[in-house]
């Protein structure tokens, strides 16, 4: 297993508050890795550290063999923030054309629009779309450059179940084609859809394993229960 991302003893403060406590984990290449845990647990901070926009206190973050934030990585990471960060006053296609120009992915615009199910909305202004549609525009803008690493912060929040299933299928298709995908979520029922799981709570990592292995080790009937057992076990220690 080659690692797309390796995090070692990562400590991050935001202001005076410590957000990540000595986090170490690996994200395998060519798989869908889920970063699961409650809101406020440090998921976004960990993703920002991987993408290289987060100032860190100590530890190492290596991405595709380079230190996080290395200029050579910029063309190789697609990052989707939790709130859709696209231009609301531009149309869907104008947003895509701009982000395609930033990532030399101009040839893929139609394909990406179809992949996120927005072909019929290409000419619509983004601020006239629904929240779920805006989230998909944001995702499309990350996909357009076909980056080898995708970092997606809660991309499926608020989407209808059919769409959510389609997007997870898309993530697995991308992974099968060699893309490493990191998806964060606070909804535990999405955990079972991942090849590998990182469980993060209150800035500490509780698991870094496959869903099957986590279930086996904890003896829990489902991943929600497994998460609970891991947390209580750790607190008891």
């Amino acid at each position, binding site marked *: 297993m080659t690692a797309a991302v390796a995090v070692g003893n990562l400590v991050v*403060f*935001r*202001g005076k508050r410590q957000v990540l406590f000595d986090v170490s984990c690996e994200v395998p290449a060519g798989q869908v890795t889920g970063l699961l845990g409650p809101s406020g647990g440090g998921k976004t901070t960990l993703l920002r550290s991987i*993408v*290289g*926009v*987060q*100032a860190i206190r100590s530890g190492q973050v290596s991405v595709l063999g380079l230190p996080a*934030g290395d200029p050579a990585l*910029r*063309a190789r*990471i697609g*990052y989707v*923030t939790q*709130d859709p*960060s*696209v*231009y*609301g*006053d*531009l*149309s869907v296609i*104008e947003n895509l*054309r*701009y*982000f395609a*120009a*930033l*990532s030399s992915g101009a040839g893929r615009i139609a394909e990406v629009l179809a992949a996120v199910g927005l072909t019929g909305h290409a000419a619509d*202004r983004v601020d006239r779309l629904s929240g779920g549609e805006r989230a998909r525009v944001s995702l499309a803008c990350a996909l357009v*450059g076909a980056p080898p690493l995708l970092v997606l912060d809660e991309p499926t929040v608020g989407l209808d179940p059919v769409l959510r299933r389609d997007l997870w299928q898309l993530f697995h298709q991308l992974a099968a084609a060699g893309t490493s995908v990191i998806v964060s979520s606070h909804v535990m029922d999405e955990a079972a859809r991942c090849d590998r799981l990182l469980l993060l709570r209150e800035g500490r990592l509780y698991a870094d394993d496959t869903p099957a292995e986590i279930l086996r080790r904890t003896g829990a009937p489902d991943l929600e229960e497994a998460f609970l057992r891991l947390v209580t076990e750790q607190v008891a220690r």
Partner: protein
Amino acid sequence: MNPAIALATARRVLQQLRHDPRTIALLLVVPSGLMTLLRYVYDGSPQIFDSIGLSLLGIFPFVTMFLITSVAMLRERTTGTLERLFTTRLAKLDLLVGYALAFAVTTCVQVGVVCLIAFGWLGLSAPAGVGWVMLLALASALLGMALGLFVSAFARTEFQAVQFLPAVVLPQFLLCGLLTPRSQMVDVLRWVSNVLPMSYAVEGLAQVRQGSVNGVLVRDLLVVIGCIVAALALGAATLRRRTS
């Protein structure tokens, strides 16, 4: 720097503007309207209209671009697009050049329309040539853009961003020599006036009115360009790829 990315950014900024026809209308109509108003306020004294009118051709683009850039950059910061851009190949310089190109185009149209009305219809004259007026207007527009970019780092809301306009623009307006010749100001105010960039844009436009391209005019333009570079450097320092 990557010219293709800078051009794509300029195109994107212009597209955003195009989707906002009301702002475009205000950009184009307000300066011409004010110029016409001024012409008839000073109906009896065309010399005063001549001097104030020319100076305003440098002040309008400064104010407009300051306002537009501070709000546009604030939006980039608060909606997360700036952070996202910094995870792409876009370099800070690409962003600055992209914005500068887009606003230079906008300023050319804006000043072009005012010039057409002021020189063609209202009888304003620029003996040293309209080309110099355009140059100085472009320079003050870019100065407004650079300062707007800088102050956007200190505002959290669009309300706050707009409040910076009087704070940055009014002192320069009062001290630039438009209301009182700078040579007649008390020493302290003249010193302050000497370090405010708008004074040089307005002085340059006064030279245009004198009718000759002289050393003072060239020096004034260079001073304004120097201030643009300094303000852009300050603004660039507020653009951080990595934040806590």
